[in-house]
Structure formats: C-alpha cells, structure tokens
C-alpha cells in the first residue's frame, strides 16, 4: 500500500500509472515531437531560439546538455540509493562519465577543434549513419577505422566476454537515461509471455530493417546515380531514420517511460541490442541462481526493466542467459535471499529454456 500523505500519494501515483504519470508521459511525448519535428509538418520549433539565446550552435547541443544533465542528476540519486551495492556504484559512475564525455563534451570539443562531431560511444547499427557511404567518405580515416572495427570487432568480442551489458547498461546513452533518471519507472515493464513474444519479433524486425538500410546505402553508392535502386535507397533511409531514429527511440522510447517502463526502445526496437542479444546467447554472461533458496517473492521480476520473468527461472533453480538481459544487476540487488548473481563464466547454460512445453511452469526441486 502507498504511504500516507500528499507525498505518498504523488510517489505512488507517478510510479503506478496514475494521473500524474500520464501527464508526465504527455509532456515528454510533446517534448520529443517538438524536438524532432519542430519546424516541419507545422510543428513549432521551440528549441532552436532557446539554443541561439544560450549561444549554442543548434537545438541538438541543447538537447545533449539536457540529456546529460538528466543522467547526471539521476545518476547521483542512484549512487545514493544503491550506495551499499558496489556493482551499481561502479556501473552508474561509468555510465555518467561516458555520457558527459563521449556522449556530449568530447564531440563538441572535437567540433570546436575543427574535427567532425563524432560520438565514440555510439556504434553501428545503433548509429547507422556511421556505416553510410557519405559518413565513410567524409570522415577522416581514423574515425572510419574506429567505426568499422568498433562495430564489427569490439562490440561482439566484448559481448562474448561480458554479455551485452558492457554496452547496454555501462556505455549506451539510451540505457544510461533508463538506468538513472528512469529509475522510478523500471518496474512498469510488462512481464507477460505475450510481451516476450512481441519483443522477439519486433527487435529482430528492426535489426533486419537496419541491415537492409545499410546494404541499400552501400549498394547505391556503388551503382550509377540513375539506377532506380538509388532512389529507393534514399527514400528507405529517410523512412528508417524517421521511424526508428525519431519515433521509436525518442518519442515512444522515452515518452512512454512513466507508462510502460524505461526500456521500451532497448527491449523491442534497438538493432544494437538485437545484435548483442544474439552474441550474448553464445557468450559467457549468465545470471546464476542459487539452489533451492528462492521464495518466489517476485521482486526480481518486478524490478526487471527488460520485462524478464526472472522469478520463473529462480524458482525452478535454473541459471540462465536471456538475450534481452542488459545486466543492470537490479534483480540481484532486490532479491531478499541473495539468490541471484551476474557472472561471466564458460558454462553451458540453458538459453531461454524455462518453458519446456506449452504453458510449462512447474516448480520442481532437484532431489
């Protein structure tokens, strides 16, 4: 039950899809619509004048500053709240530092120094532009090497050794916002089998769409300009940027924080998460379950931002690796019996094997 008083009501209302949560969602939604579509489709451009007044080069710099501020403030709160948990302290510190440096100030400083505004913390296929031929031809060669080697070698290799968490909950800005400012909403993700099914279809669809966008872009650079494929590729790239880059990651991804939890984008639509998830399934990362100690309380499932029903594994004594798990470590933190730990080990664990038959959900005990 909620705590007494106005503060108790507000705290409960905003974190349990109450009126204030819907209002907050509408505000964030509007913010992103104005940010992405301001000046087009009849949407007023409210942010560019503000950026100008503050002496910033564009509204995107203003947005980057606000985004970093949200991560730093939310991060400080996280550090206080989980000060007893070293994993959370280390992880949150890293995510804050990466956002402030690689995610914001480094690209701005590069630009000041006459270099390209390059984000080292974003890689293909999340930052799909870095594989588009116009980026490859315009960027100085060290950046191109980093783009290619980073996306094709660094990301999967680190994924094999540490799971997707090295990126999704330690480096990435999307995950960074979710795990700091988004903390009050993490429990709202749906844990149903249906949403798991949707997630698998949606995220791999976006991954294929991203691969297709890259292939078309690279292909059209090799084809003569009058080829019909070039026109199609241009249109497709624009639609992909609009749907995935603006609507799914921003407007819906962040706009729905107070309603559907913090990782809607990461869980259902991020092509990078899809790829890292596939790597994770063959990699070393897993969540280990201590035998027979689970009391099925369900705090782990409740506070899983990716909507994994952790309890269904814990209560059946099953260590597991789920493709979607970003390794935030919160299931281990909230478990009152210390049942769960995150670890990197070479061991052959069942992958998504909790349901052996239709509706399989037993509570077996190894005897």
């Amino acid at each position, binding site marked *: 039950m909620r705590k*007494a008083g106005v503060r108790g009501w507000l705290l409960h209302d905003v974190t349990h899809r109450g009126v204030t949560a819907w209002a907050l969602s509408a505000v964030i939604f509007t913010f992103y619509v104005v940010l992405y579509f301001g000046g087009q489709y009849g949407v007023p451009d409210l942010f560019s004048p503000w950026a100008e007044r503050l002496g910033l080069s564009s509204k995107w710099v203003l947005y980057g500053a606000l985004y970093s501020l949200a991560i730093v403030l939310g991060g400080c709160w996280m550090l206080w709240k989980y000060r007893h948990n070293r*994993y959370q302290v280390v992880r949150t510190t890293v995510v804050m530092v990466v956002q402030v440096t690689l995610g914001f100030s480094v690209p701005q400083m590069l630009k000041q120094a006459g270099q390209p505004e390059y984000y080292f913390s974003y890689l293909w296929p999340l930052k799909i532009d870095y594989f588009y031929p116009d980026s490859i031809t315009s960027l100085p060669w060290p950046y191109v090497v980093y783009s290619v080697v980073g996306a094709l070698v660094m990301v999967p290799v680190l994924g094999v050794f540490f799971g997707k968490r090295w990126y999704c909950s330690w480096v990435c800005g999307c995950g960074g916002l979710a795990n700091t400012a988004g903390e009050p909403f993490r429990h709202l993700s749906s844990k149903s089998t249906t949403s798991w099914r949707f997630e698998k279809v949606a995220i791999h669809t976006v991954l294929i769409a991203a691969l297709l966008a890259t292939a078309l872009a690279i292909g059209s650079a090799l084809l003569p300009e009058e080829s019909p494929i070039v026109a199609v590729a241009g249109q497709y790239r624009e639609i992909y940027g609009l749907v995935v880059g603006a609507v799914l990651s921003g407007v819906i991804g962040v706009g729905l924080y107070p309603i559907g939890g913090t990782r809607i984008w990461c869980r259902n639509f991020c092509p990078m998460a899809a790829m890292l998830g596939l790597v994770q399934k063959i990699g070393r990362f897993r969540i280990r379950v201590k035998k*027979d100690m689970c009391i099925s309380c369900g705090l782990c499932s409740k506070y899983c931002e990716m909507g994994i029903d952790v309890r269904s594994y814990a*209560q059946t004594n099953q260590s597991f690796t789920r493709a979607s798990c970003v390794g935030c470590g919160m299931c281990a933190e909230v478990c009152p019996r210390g049942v769960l730990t995150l670890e990197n080990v070479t061991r052959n664990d069942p992958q998504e094997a909790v349901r052996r038959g239709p509706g399989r959900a037993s509570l077996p005990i190894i005897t």
Partner: protein
Amino acid sequence: MHIVIVGNGIAGITCALDARDRDASARITVVGGETEYFYSRTALMYAFMDKMNRRDLEPLERDVWRKRNIGLVTDWVVDHDADKRELKLAGGRTIAYDVLVLALGATANKPDWEGLTEVKHGVVNFVSMQDLDACEAMVPSAKRAVVVGGGLIGIELVECLVHHGIATTFLIREPYYWPAALSREESQMVIAHLREQGVEVVVEDSVQRVESSGGRFTAVVTSSGKRYAGDILGVCIGVRANLDRMKAWKSAPASRRGIVVDERFRTDIAGVFACGDCCEIARPTKGPLIETIWYSAKRHGAVVARNIFGDDVAYEPPVFFNSSKFFHIEFTTVGDVESAPAGTPTIFRHRAGQHVCQRIVHDGTRVIGFNMLGSRWDNEVLVRWVTERRSPAYVLRHLAEAQHDVEFGRMNLQHSTRSRSPS
C-alpha cells in the same frame, strides 16, 4: 482418476503441477479459500510496503491453470466424508475424489493474554492475504504500534510498519532476538540495526495484559509492569498447523501438532495425503518432524505427487539451510546450528564497526553448521562442506569460495576479529 488438493499454497500447487507433469490425463482440482490464485506468502511484506502490487505476488501467469488443465475452486472445505470419498464446500458444492491431498498450511498462534478477547479492532497477524488487508486498513489512522514476537514474521511486520512511519515497539520475550537461530552476539547486532532504524526493541519481557477502550486496542502491559501504548498490536508469536476447520469434518485424519503422516505423507485414511506446514511427519527412528519453510513445502508437494502415482518415495529432509533478511542485514544459515548443544566450539568472525559476521560451528574435527550475517553466501557450497565433513581449517582456507556477493562488492574477509569460543 480425480486428484483433489485442498490448499493453494506452495505445497499444494507444487503437488498439482508435478502430478500434471506425471500424468497428462488425470483430473486435478485445487480447492483454496484464501485467494483465487496461488500467491507467494513470503512476499506479503513487499505488497504492504508498496514494492509490489497484489497481482505481482502470483508466481505463475494466470493462464497456466488453463494450459496445464488444472481446475481451481475458490472455496473453503467444510466437510469431508472418507467413506463416500467426498468433500463438501462452504458454497454448497460437493466434490468427489479418488486421491485427496491436504495442504492446509499454517495459521498464526493465538495467545491467551488477559483482556485480548475484548479487543475487536487493532490486533493483527501477518501470515495471510486477509491479514494484509487488515494491516492495510489500520495503517492510515495509526501512529504507534506494538509487535509481539521474536521471530521472522515479527521483524517483517516491524519493517513494514516502520516503512509507513509508525513508531513501533518490538517486544521480545526471550533475552535476545530469535535465540532459536541466532547467538547472543549475532542477535545484538540485529537489535542494534533495528534501533538504528528507529525501532524500540524491548527484550526479556512478555505481555501480561492487553488494554482496550471501546473494543479498540490501546496498550499492552508487560510482566515487568511497563505499559506500551499503540494503535496496532501485531501478534507474531509463531504459527501452528491450520487444523481448525478440520475439526468439524465427519472424517478428519489423525493429528497431533499437525496431521500425522508417514514418510510418504500418507495419513491414517486410505487415499488421503497431507503435506506442507500442516503435517507432522512421524519417523520410525527419529522424532516427529514439522517443517515450515518454503522449500520444504515444495519438496513435500513433489514427493506426494510421486507417491500418488505409486513411486513409493520416502521423504528425507535435506541438510537444513535457510536465509532471511533483517531490514538490511542478510542472513544465511546452514546445518545444525540451532540444536548444537551449549559449549559446542565455534569460530566467530566479526567485522569491526559493521553488521557483518560469520559463525562456523564444528565439533573439533568437522564443520557442522554456519550462521552468516551481513553478506551473501552460497548455501550450496556451505551444505557441501557440511556433507563432506570438512575440517574447520579447510573451511576457513576456502571460505571465499562460498561468497555470493555482487560483482565488485565481495565482502572482504580479512580484518575481522576472530574468536574461538564456546558460544
């Protein structure tokens, strides 16, 4: 074959699901009156503290029952006729069975304190969904509370009340908190932690009289003559097998402290099993056994399911282990710590200035149990050391292997003060 299970707690539900795994065609019905769906009783406190919704307490998705073809009946059993093999429900319905499993669970002990019968409002237990409802109804108007009892449920209720800003007195009859499981040093650490959280802890005092005004609880007066006022009286003095409703049945199985069963969970009535918190297992060589732990109920249910289908499996309790959390102090216990006689040698390590300690109980040559507080431990490794009869020296050398803390957060086992003394 129609298997009817009375009780939709963890024992009954495990039995139902395991029976279904075993036989796809048997008709299985679970009758339970407390809630419509199986829920995790251990999580009641998290619902009380707004960490979870009621629905989150259900460990299985609701369509599991349809998919697994297990019938659920939300009702109480009012009569049982063993000759007709038939149950009568409060709603008037009768259910015929071929095999009956009684997984009735436990209920809160009722004290006989003077003046308690006059109290109509303000007294709560904390073991059922109905108790949670009662607690939640009282919290908004309450300023002070008194919780009586020195066990796990008591400390859970105290934590919930403190969370809601209610000034709470925790009244413990014993000289220190939970002597059945903790040593004096360990308990003093827990009590110090409780006091840091603002709890008024009173030890070695018991309720003599309960005061009320107009049927509303106002205070308890203890044997030492002290008076503790409050709006809520939490009674958490242990649980007992839930046999009350059974007394009105035409054919009730024999019971002592629980329904008497053999090691195959058979009662004295043919075709009727009992398991979980409500049963007392009679064992030919050792004393009767009553287990009231989540995992033991699961094990009981699983063994019953096998015996129903003629596997003839005798129940063997594992090396004892359990874990808990006292506010923020995590607790893991393994082996025979509780019943170790006074003077049993122990190695006690305590980390100065922190609520962290480890106690290793041994008989001179081999380790027989562990009590670990303030950090996380892997019960599997500790149990293995007990069954492998490892020496204290071996265990101390390898202690770090049993740690189960979060990454980067492994508790430093160095710099602990160490004493080898009878505890």
